[in-house]
């Protein structure tokens, strides 16, 4: 789990340096942490031989974070809705939902092998910042 903490810390630094307010910064770091946990647990199935990789970019208009694993792949459309009454009390299955809820854009790309998630948070123009 050390890699997850490192990725989370890097995301927090990126969000902080971008001047995001505390709530938005929390949303970014939480989404990135969930993506990293998914990559280690569900992507790589805790296999220490498999790596996760992460990139962090602020292009001036958005924060763009990618998290990739080396697992068997993920079909995001096949995931059950954690808000459905029959799933609400399940102990798992909220990670991808949270990522999608907390970020402005989330893209999935199948690698060979693995899955890459791209998480995007748009930055408010300077004139809109309070």
């Amino acid at each position, binding site marked *: 789990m050390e890699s997850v903490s490192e990725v989370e810390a890097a995301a927090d630094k990126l969000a902080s340096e971008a001047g995001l307010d505390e*709530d938005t910064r*929390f949303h970014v770091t939480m989404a990135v*942490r969930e993506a990293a946990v998914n990559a280690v647990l569900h992507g790589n199935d805790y296999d220490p031989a498999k790596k996760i990789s992460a990139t962090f970019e602020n292009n001036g208009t958005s924060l763009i974070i990618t998290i990739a694993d080396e697992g068997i792949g993920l079909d995001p459309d096949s995931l059950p809705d*954690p*808000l459905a009454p029959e799933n609400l009390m399940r*102990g798992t299955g*909220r990670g991808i939902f949270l990522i999608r809820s907390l970020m402005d854009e989330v893209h999935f790309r199948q690698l060979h092998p693995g899955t890459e998630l791209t998480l995007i948070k748009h930055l408010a123009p300077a004139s809109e910042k309070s």
Partner: protein
Amino acid sequence: MALTIASREVDGVTVLDLSGRVTLGEGSVQLREAIRDLISKGSHKILLNMGEVNYIDSSGLGELVSAYTTAKNQSASVKLLSLTHKVKDVLQLTKLYTVFDVFDDEASAIASYK
């Protein structure tokens, strides 16, 4: 910061004062064990004081759900006290806020068990 859990009794209610993060590898297992231990020892009124919990992830949410369900199956109840803004935010996003009994002040929470 990892999770610390302190236990105290108030009018027959076991209050667990949580402080830190309830996340995978940093507190979710501790919370699970603390609640199972309490229920196995016969505590049926459990109040989680989350006023010092500044972070919860999907694993931590899973543990809250599991605690709620485990308690209910044993005729016990787990309620939540003093959610921080961040934890409340996540509980609302996932619709779990509607599942739990949530209180802002301890006296009301304790009274609700009577």
